[in-house]
């Protein structure tokens, strides 16, 4: 059952990310739903599932991006693993704390991606950070916090995290 849920999640993420999200982008920046989904999976299901789902998301999304496969695998898989690990270290997760955590994680993965661009000099790197990486990190944090808040309103998130 869980496996089917994850397959549907991965399959639906592609059209959401590539077709629908460009309509709601702000200044041509859209949130990375793959990163948010990997983080929430890690938080609710633990490191192993977070890692595996993150890797699957990273791989499938990389098929529909000009970006490199290894970067997509590392960032999404790493985020699933990291949130699974961090989720166990904090006793209380709120929308705000999750949002801030996602912001930092997205910022780290964005910086890693920016450093991978070989043609960038310092000024171009700074431009990329302030006009793409930072707004996207804020967007990811806000979307993650919003999703978590919606889940916590609808379900008993404590139970979801423990069971």
């Amino acid at each position, binding site marked *: 059952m869980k496996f089917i849920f994850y397959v549907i999640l991965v*399959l*639906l993420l*592609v*059209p959401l*990310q*590539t*077709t*629908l999200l*460009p*309509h709601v982008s702000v200044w*041509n*920046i*859209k949130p*990375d739903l*793959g990163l948010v989904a990997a983080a929430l999976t890690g*938080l609710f*299901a*633990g*490191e*192993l599932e*977070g*890692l*595996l789902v993150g*890797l699957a998301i990273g*791989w*499938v*999304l*990389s*098929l*529909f*991006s*000009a*970006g490199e*496969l*290894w970067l997509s*695998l*590392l960032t999404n*898989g*790493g985020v699933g*693993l990291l949130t*699974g*690990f961090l989720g*166990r270290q*904090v*006793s*209380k*997760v709120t929308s705000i704390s999750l949002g801030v955590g996602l912001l930092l994680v997205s910022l780290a993965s*964005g910086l890693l*991606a*920016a450093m991978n*661009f070989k*043609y960038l000099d310092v000024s*171009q790197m700074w431009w*990329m950070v302030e006009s*793409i990486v930072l707004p*996207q990190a804020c967007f990811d944090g806000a979307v993650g916090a919003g999703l978590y808040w919606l889940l916590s309103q609808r379900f008993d998130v*404590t139970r979801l*995290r*423990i*069971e």
Partner: protein
Amino acid sequence: MWMVNSRVSSGARRLAFACFALLVAALFLLPGQIQGLLQYLDGPVGHVVRVPLEAIASIDAGIADRWQQYVVLQGVWEENQQLRKEIEWLRGQNNQLRESATATGRLTTLLQFKEQALPTMVAAQVIGRDATNRYRAIILNKGESDGIKPDMGVITPAGVVGRVVKTTGASSVVLLVTDPNNAIAGLIQRTRDEGIVEGTQQGLAQLKYIPLLSTLRDGDRVVTSGLVGGFPRGLSIGTITHIDKQEGALFQSAELMPEVDVGRVEEVLVIQTSYGQPRKAVVEADLLGKPSP
């Protein structure tokens, strides 16, 4: 009160960390092998993902069409679309004619002028944009099974759109001409000086490595040179808007306004074979197909 997630056993945790460490090591030590391994699965996965992707893309296009046709401006929109298509077509024609006129004078002086065959193209629809914000790319609804391969050029009747960089069985990713990672061999139509067209971070394009003695000026049109890459000669890339000539530099560069509005492109043509190639291919096919006398 929230409680700590204690569901995951320590064995699973260790396994997760071990898997990740193994993956990192494999990606850095054997990047080619890992990519090769995953490429076997790209085709089937691409076909599976294509189903929801095309379904949602067609719903999205349908809603956008209805909205524009019936809600916003009923009659004017259709007329406008027709006129835009006509303008695009005429621009392409105009550009081709101008290129032909320039070339004719030069080529007629050459004794060994050969007739050029038209390139073979495949029409495709844009069904999405790059999954990340870091690349300017579009996703097409045709892929390897339709004969599309990496490095093929992508155009509209107005001019160059970009280059195919990745394909699955049923889709392909096109890196736009405005992406800084893209490089296309260009030619200033009036002066015949060559350079390399690259995208800029601001979403425009620039022509680099122009000879210092070139007499280029604002408003000059830049076309494909046809020397390298998947584009034939003479396809419009953009118009020069600003020239950058620095003291002591070996080359000058120029900013370009791309001919195609890549943010709004919906249908494209993928160039499968450039000028000259089809004829050879046809001849070879004829030779192979015909029974020996």
